[in-house]
């Protein structure tokens, strides 16, 4: 069990990596693409969709209690591995 906030940190790190790679891709397409309105439009759509997804997700995540303990292993699995020898009935 660990606080949900740990997953938020992991999410933010992966989001940061995504942002850096996106920025590099945008720089390449703006530097080497033709200086036309089409290039700017495509870049605008790309950034716009990213902004929508990040802001939309962020809006939902604002109300979450990040101290909630969570486990990424399902409860059913922990109960299987958590059984001790005394829990297993002896064969008659």
């Amino acid at each position: 069990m660990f606080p949900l906030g740990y997953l938020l940190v992991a999410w933010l790190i992966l989001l940061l990596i995504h942002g850096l790679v996106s920025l590099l891709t945008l720089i390449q397409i703006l530097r080497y693409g033709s200086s036309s309105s089409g290039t700017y439009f495509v870049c605008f759509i790309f950034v716009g969709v990213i902004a929508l997804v990040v802001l939309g997700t962020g809006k939902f995540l604002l109300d979450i209690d990040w101290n909630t303990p969570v486990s990424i292993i399902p409860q059913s699995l922990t109960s299987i591995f958590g059984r001790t020898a005394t829990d297993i009935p002896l064969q008659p």
Partner: protein
Amino acid sequence: MSLARFIAGIQSDEEIVYALRRFWFALIPDFIGAFFIFAIPVGTYIYLSNAQPAFFQDPARFAMFLMGASLFFLYGWLFLFQNFADWYLDVWIVTNRRIVNIEQHGLFGRTTSELMLYNVQDVTSDIRGFFATMFSYGNISIQTAAEKEHFLFENVAHPNEIAKRILELTHDARLVEESHMGHAVTPEEMTGKEE
């Protein structure tokens, strides 16, 4: 077109006749792949909402799903955009003097090569397959006198018309070159070899 900035030492009388990219049809497999990638988080949400309605009632569980789904979508979107950039930045520019081949390899690889039109000896267009015939796209192979120099325009629209036009431009470029040199261009001059 603003692509002139990618042609080194462009002459004042040099004009861009074609700026070619692969036919848009080449992007369809990427879009289909992206559609399935984007459908996975949406499909998972719909499935879990119906099969286990209590699953998303826990806010922590919903937050975990949302973070995972958003990352999945964002990386899928980036993958699609990078494929688009790879397509968009591969350009073949035909001017009335030369052919410039610009190829983007991933994010950090870029190759630019060019050949003068008066060196071109053979231009072949090739349309193969059902979709290529229906949408009129295919390959154009450009061979110079030098055995190793060979340009291939892959999956460009209307290859027959373009190949014909390149042959006309080649003829004109050779006449201009001959008028500068004062005699006909010999095969040795085409290949750059002195016999």
